[in-house]
């Protein structure tokens, strides 16, 4: 089991953040979920917390997840944090751009069920040991 169980979710939809809050309380109550609705908030959290993993929505209110990925790649200390995209955008061009920017995986919204979401996350090596 990892020592660091801090996960950051970057999503402007409070319902999705609440969903993940409940999800992680059930699958592993030791996980601490930090929430950001914008990139400014996300960067502030990353600078002040030891984040082990990032869940990122692509379609934020004022920015895109790709903006974050590009920023992340320019910062050596943030670049090492694994990122998984959670999005209903599945256009090949967008997915490819995310892959080119170093994401670990791409999970499509909506999730079929929380059990399937758990199974899906367990298949991601950087995440598996947390669940």
């Amino acid at each position, binding site marked *: 089991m990892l020592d660091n169980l801090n996960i950051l979710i970057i999503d402007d*939809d409070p*319902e*999705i953040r*609440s*969903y993940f809050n*409940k999800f992680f309380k*059930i699958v592993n109550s030791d996980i601490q979920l930090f929430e950001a609705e914008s990139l400014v908030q996300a960067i502030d959290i990353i600078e002040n917390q030891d984040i082990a993993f990032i869940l990122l929505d692509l*379609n934020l209110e004022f920015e895109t997840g790709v903006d974050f990925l590009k920023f992340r790649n320019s910062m050596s200390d943030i670049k090492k944090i694994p990122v998984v995209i959670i*999005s*209903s955008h599945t256009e090949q061009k967008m997915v490819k751009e995310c892959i080119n920017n170093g994401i670990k995986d791409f999970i499509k*919204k*909506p*999730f*079929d*069920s*929380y059990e399937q979401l758990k199974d899906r996350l367990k298949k991601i090596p950087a995440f598996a040991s947390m669940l």
Partner: protein
Amino acid sequence: MSKEIELPVFYEDLTPPYIIKRKKEIDSLRELLIAGDFSEIQKIAHKIAGSGGSYGLEEISRIGKEMEVASISEDALKVKNSLEELSSFLNEIKVLFRG
């Protein structure tokens, strides 16, 4: 007539507020349709399409996707039909939770 949907207890404190929020959104969507603001309708429909299934309500995601596609092509009639279908679904649905 109500449509009953049974969901795992996991959704007990997630799905009811989600339904309430979608109901509140219906009037805004109607106003946006009257104003011909398809861009804003598309944004909201995209979120509906991307969220409903996560709350055990795949039907909402399906309707949201149809509304999103209709708003991209600025097809007011199809947007209106999706909107009324969503409104009916939200008013008729009764969610039960199993432990």
